[in-house]
């Protein structure tokens, strides 16, 4: 870890590190911890709090308590023979992951590691409150173009919420319903959704995310930003606007030989590459978001390939790393695989095969239905989203929304079709 970054760490943490805290950690804890400290500048506020809490908790333990806390992890490391591995203690590598995953003790090790985190969380329980930060909103959009079956569209949600009819007539003149909800009038009741969140005390762009399989929603958000204001007040990620970054990443990833060492070499190159020039302005000027994307693309899960996977995985990672108050995620359409070449290459099929791309509307609709649920499930894993979060999944083509929310959410029992104006006012009121 470089001195330069250590200087930026909170004083109490720096003090613990100077007293040799890292050397007291088990080997398998070191890569992730060192990497996070090295990347402190590009961690979200929530992540910083989280690692700070863990390390200060560990630093507060005496030798005996620390040994007891890590006893199981250390025993398993010995059984696994980690000291004999080519295991990087500096950063997480594919080789590290592979060595751990094929150990017969891997699952036991995972459970033991989780116990340590649970203990730290329990200790910090009084410090953090699940209600802290006010109400939260997850707004999922399945756009008009996606064909959905009214009878089946919400089946996967297994009754956790209820459908509410929408009156989308107004949006025909003012853009898509999603754009109307996001853009709306700044003079209307409560103001715009993005503004409401950014007015909260200590709000940052990490509190508010717009994730777009296409670009119209992010374009709409960008139009709301005051000109010359610098970095946007929300995190704005459009799969379409990130095309250059994706293509450059794909090129490198596809150059990889089927070899763990080569994979780590390629990943190392991509971790160090200056990606600024490949990013649209709303990303280029925000280091923490640039690094979020780099990490997102390196972690796979289809984010480089399919726009809907990008939306889902971005949202999941945003919940895990930033705990945002507001996430708006719009799904989109992918093409059908092209004959023959899709056997081999998924990225940039137009470069490989000159046949015209054909939209796969039913397939995209099914993908979106599953992935919208996955976004909600990803949020549900965290305490912060269990009590005061409203999740609305809007099926534009059906003029219907599925709502999972606490009883106090105003539309929870709504029987009549809800106009977009009323919906927007309800959402801004909820967030305000």
């Amino acid at each position: 870890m470089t001195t330069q970054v250590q200087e930026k760490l909170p004083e109490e943490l720096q003090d613990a590190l100077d007293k040799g805290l890292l050397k007291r950690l088990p080997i398998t804890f070191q890569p992730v911890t060192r990497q996070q400290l090295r990347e402190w500048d590009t961690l979200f506020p929530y992540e910083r709090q989280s690692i700070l809490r863990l390390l200060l908790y560990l630093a507060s333990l005496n030798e005996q308590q620390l040994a007891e806390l890590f006893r199981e992890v250390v025993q398993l490391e010995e059984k696994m023979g980690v000291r004999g591995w080519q295991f990087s203690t500096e950063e997480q590598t594919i080789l590290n992951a592979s060595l751990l995953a094929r150990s017969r003790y891997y699952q036991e090790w995972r459970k033991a590691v989780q116990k340590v985190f649970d203990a730290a969380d329990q200790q910090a329980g009084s410090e953090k409150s699940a209600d802290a930060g006010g109400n939260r909103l997850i707004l999922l959009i399945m756009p008009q173009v996606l064909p959905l079956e009214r009878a089946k569209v919400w089946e996967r949600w297994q009754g956790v919420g209820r459908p509410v009819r929408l009156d989308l007539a107004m949006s025909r003149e003012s853009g898509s319903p999603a754009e109307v909800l996001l853009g709306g009038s700044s003079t209307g009741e409560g103001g715009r959704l993005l503004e409401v969140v950014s007015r909260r005390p200590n709000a940052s762009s990490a509190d508010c995310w717009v994730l777009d399989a296409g670009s119209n929603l992010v374009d709409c958000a960008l139009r709301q930003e005051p000109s010359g204001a610098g970095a946007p007040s929300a995190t704005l990620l459009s799969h379409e606007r990130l095309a250059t970054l994706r293509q450059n990443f794909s090129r490198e990833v596809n150059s990889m030989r089927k070899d763990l060492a080569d994979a780590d070499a390629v990943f190392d190159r991509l971790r160090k590459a200056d990606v600024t020039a490949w990013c649209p302005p709303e990303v280029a000027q925000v280091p923490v978001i640039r690094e979020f994307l780099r990490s997102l693309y390196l972690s796979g899960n289809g984010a480089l390939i399919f726009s809907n996977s990008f939306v889902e995985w971005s949202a999941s990672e945003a919940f895990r790393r930033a705990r945002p108050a507001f996430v708006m995620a719009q799904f989109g359409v992918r093409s059908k695989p092209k004959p023959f070449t899709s056997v081999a290459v998924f990225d940039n099929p137009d470069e490989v095969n000159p046949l015209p791309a054909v939209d796969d509307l039913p397939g995209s609709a099914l993908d979106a239905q599953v992935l919208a649920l996955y976004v909600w499930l990803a949020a549900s894993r965290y305490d912060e989203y269990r009590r005061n979060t409203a999740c609305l999944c809007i099926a534009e083509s059906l003029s219907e929304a599925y709502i999972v929310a606490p009883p106090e959410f105003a539309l929870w029992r709504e029987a009549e079709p809800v106009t977009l104006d009323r919906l927007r006012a309800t959402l801004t009121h909820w967030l305000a």
Partner: protein
Amino acid sequence: MKPTGDSVSRVISGVPEATIDKSKREFLRAAMALLAGLNLPRTSLAGGGLHGTGGSGQRVVIVVFGGVRRAETFSPQGLVNIPHLSGDLLPQSLFYRDARNEGVTAHFNAISSMLTGNWQRVDDWGKLAPTTPTLFEQFRKGLGAAQSDTWVVASNKALTNLIGASSATDYGPMYGANVVFPKQLMVAAVANALRAGRSRNMADREKIEAELQSMLEAGNYEGLGWSVFDGAERLDPRVRATIEEAITSFVRSGGPTSGDELTFLVSREVMRKFSPRLLVVIFSDVEVAHFGSYAMHVGGIRTGDRLSYQMWQEIQANSEYKGKTTMVVMPEFGRDPDGSTTNGFFNHRGDTESTRGTWMMALGAAVEKPQIIERPIRHVDLCATLGDLLGCPPMDSQGVRLKELRG
């Protein structure tokens, strides 16, 4: 155990029939009727006989399916994805409802565990061979079978030719299987055309065929990960003709063009030309799940379902196989459950029932009568069982022989 309505219901659902919708109840009734009609012992070994050198005279075809969850296959909502397995094949099969992968739920280790009968924990990118002898080696060494008698035809890019033989002392490649990765041929042809500025060829079926043929002519098939006939410098003319036939069918049929289609066509040609006594076919279209398209993942399951059925039809139509072949269909593992930290169906890393729990279907000669077995079995049980069917000497395996399959 005699199949009953209850047991069929348990196979596909684990939930009371009353909770299944009307169309599924109708399906279940039809499936039960089929089972009832097929419940008599079969004279399954009629027409059997020795082929080549030693052994029982039985043949074995193993179809490995990639990672699929029970939820998308043998469950009420999954049946729609597997009409052939559940409708055409289940009624004549020995069906193990609970087949567990208790090892590393990643491709190379999962498949090599099935093929060795021991849980393997080697490099998952196929840089290390399994550490205990494979079924191919046991078969060839124990019975003096020729290399042309043992084949692996696989779509999965995570495999290498090391899947065909172990690093065990006294065994190894000299007793290994022929290994072919047809999808890699396609990948290489596309990459080659792209490098040479001929990507327009990829829109033209005739030119695609030419691109594929030129990859074979280039003589770099070892670069595709193949190991065919002791890795001779030139592809054996019969092997080459076999693959050319499959390519022609693949390109000119006008049918689907996924990697598994090509794998099936190459497997079929290998059966027709070489009649191997032990053939392992590994499908992997379902692995598109790693990229997050649920629709394409389900499409892969449907393709695997159809190709498994076509494989069974080929066995019935091929006199070298009919009546003396046992075909086993088995997923490598499941996939992670919805809502898991590992992103649900995308991956298969969890230590969960959804990830480890699969099923196994056996058809043909070794199936004395259709049955549904509730007792859990493990993936490593397959090797010892099939080795015994083939007449191999007893092997050192962590698995146990499945008594319901009879040689």
